[in-house]
């Protein structure tokens, strides 16, 4: 089966790649170049906090054990706030666990903001992506908890800026191409949402590092963006805020972890839902 996939890839690669670099590519590149500002951030000492969440589950026949957690971790690796839940239910759908994890992230973000221990609070991912999936009233309430934070995503599918040009890839693809691996950022782009105005910025904190997508809540001009980039740069490794890496490491619930918890619940002898496949 996979052999056929390989052969197909070899046969059709030119055609598939040319789909992205189509007639609109030059126009999009010009627009992206116009938006791009070269800027080498000057690290500004500050305290940063990273927010991340994780969930995992182990399905047995007729019941599911799940664990969700969310943490706010400072760049000195201090856990500023945390939330968790573990339970056994008849079912636990991944979408539902994901939504609950997002809610818990909002709570720890709010707590981190209230603690006053961080000058900049970074949340992993995109607020637009997560709140678009929620009901309007809930999204509005949750958005309020993120007032003092920024969102940092390692990748993005957003086509908000170049979708109208007929782009065939996410906006981040084009900024990556035109920026020649240099540090800088794109002009803040206003994204109207039902829960408030959000500005998205694509930025590279240091030369030759991966680009990140940053979402800022409220008004954001050039000066604000530069200040934030200066702060993010202070605690970043390879162009990525280190507090987010610490948050990821702290909250991650591995399969090994869920097995340990299953053992604590004396579920180790239950038949697993995928035992028939020896998985």
């Amino acid at each position, binding site marked *: 089966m996979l052999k056929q996939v390989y052969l197909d890839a070899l046969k059709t690669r030119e055609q598939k790649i040319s789909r992205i670099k189509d007639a609109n590519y030059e126009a999009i590149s010009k627009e992206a170049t116009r938006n791009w500002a070269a800027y080498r951030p000057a690290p500004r000492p500050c305290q940063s906090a990273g927010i991340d969440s994780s969930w995992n589950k182990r399905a047995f026949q007729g019941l599911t054990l799940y664990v969700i957690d969310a943490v706010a971790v400072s*760049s*000195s*690796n*201090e856990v500023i706030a945390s939330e968790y839940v573990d339970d056994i239910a008849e079912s636990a759908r991944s979408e539902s666990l994901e939504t609950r994890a997002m809610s818990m992230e909002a709570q720890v973000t709010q707590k981190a903001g209230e603690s006053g221990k961080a000058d900049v609070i970074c949340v992993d991912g995109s607020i637009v992506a997560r709140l678009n999936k929620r009901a309007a009233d809930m999204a509005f309430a949750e958005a309020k908890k993120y007032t003092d934070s920024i969102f940092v995503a390692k990748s993005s599918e957003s086509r908000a800026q170049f979708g109208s040009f007929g782009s065939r890839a996410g906006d981040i693809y084009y900024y990556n191409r035109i920026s020649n691996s240099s540090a800088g950022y794109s002009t803040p782009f206003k994204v109207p949402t039902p829960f408030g105005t959000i500005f998205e910025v694509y930025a590279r904190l*240091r030369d*030759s590092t991966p680009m990140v997508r940053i979402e800022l809540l409220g008004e954001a001009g050039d000066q604000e963006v530069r200040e934030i980039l200066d702060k993010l740069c202070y*605690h*970043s*490794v*390879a162009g990525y805020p*280190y507090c987010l890496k*610490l948050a990821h*490491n702290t909250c991650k619930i591995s399969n090994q972890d869920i097995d340990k918890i299953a053992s604590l619940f004396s579920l180790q002898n239950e038949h697993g839902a995928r035992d028939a496949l020896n998985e």
Partner: protein
Amino acid sequence: MSDNGAALGILVGDTRPDKVYFESRRSVSIGEYVVLEYGKGRVLGLVENSKVSSDALGTEIRNFDEAYESSQVAVENKRDKSYRATVRILGYVEDLRKCKSVIPAIPPEPGINVYEATREDLAAVFSARGPEWVRVGTLLRNPEVDARVNVDKVVSRHLAILAMTGMGKSNLVSLLAKELATIPGTVIIFDYHGDYSSLDISNLNFTDARINPRYLSWEKLADVIEIQDNASNQRHVLRAAFTQDVKDRKDEDFWDALSSGVAAERTDKTYREASNKVLDKIDDARNKFKKILDPGMHEPLSVIKNGKINVVSLVELTEKQANVLVSYYLEEVLNDRKWAENVKKDPTKATRQVRFPAPVLVVIEEAHVFVPKDEDTDTKYYASKVAREGRKFGVGLVIVSQRPRGIDANILSQMGSLAVMRMIQPDDQMHVSAASESLSRDLLDQLTSLNPGEAIFAGQWVNLPTFVRVEEVKERTLGSDLKAVEQWKRLDGSKNMAKESSDTYIPSGYIQD
């Protein structure tokens, strides 16, 4: 029960009865001792491996910039560092105080505390008291605790001192000699390089190596007067001439008789040339080795004094001559000690005087030359005999070498105690590891990190494998590296001085410019 020292860490990972890992609150030195409490009481452990790792500065770092940025964030991350140590369990503290090592059968549970060993704990184990224990320095990581070794075990079970050049082998031999001189013990040091000529301790007896050629076999005599192994005609001539009648002659008469015997072989045309060559060799031996070869001496062993540190200089000898001499002395000492033990059991058998009524410790420097791995030498034969039988008859052997891989494995494996210093060559480490049960692989891995004067002591002369800082023997001036630049400058200075002083005797204008 003693109090514990400061809390150092917590056991993590899988534990075994003989080996555990712990996460420490600080970086831990290899060779440090720790105490754990489990089983029937307090248990002593030795840190055999220590590792510091950083979460931010892991092996996944891809370039310098990333390393630099990671180093910045690591400074602020209070949990960035992990201090992980491997501990070899040595036994219950209480048993170790009584020189017994009892390792708990059940492994400790992860999560228990690890404490620093206190001075009292270590002193009780490593600073054993008694006339047989002598001080050789301090514990490497606990300089306030004396390190002592059991001399009785050195004599009865032998010792190997192994290290690269300049790491302190001769210093350790000198230190042992200094301590044994105070007892006073009988020691014979075969000094191949003159390392001990400057030793200035009590009870010393410097002597030049001397042997009576009359007591040698013809083969050994051939070696001593430097007849090559492949010179079969010359060897034939010597064998024919070295008759019992010749052996019975004393002093110069012996050489004359031997020369006459060799000259007589000239009648046979085949051996004429060989006879002439042997005569030349005998003539050389009579002149060049006058001090060493003494056909008039009654008893070669008489140069060795009981209750003294006897330094036998081999400096002027060739390798073959030294080999003949060392093997001869080893054989004679062993035979005398056997005789002494027989007489002790049955005094009526005492038909001749016992030369060594008490045990003798023999030190062979450059052991890879005298007891080599791939060659059969006379010294190797007798050293092997001493290694096997010495325990019964009170002849201890200390072999010293900077090339352990060149030493006969059989002899090395019979050395019950080891002092191993810095050693870089993996071949050397492997050879020592294969020959010794008391040195673990983890301990041997640390040999490259030892500094001069630091050693791992293992085997029967210590209660436990120990990292030791060996005391420097101030009463010894040679042995350190030659200071060539200083000596050249001094020579140049003395030339100028000589010129200036001679100038004063030369009338001005006598030498034209």
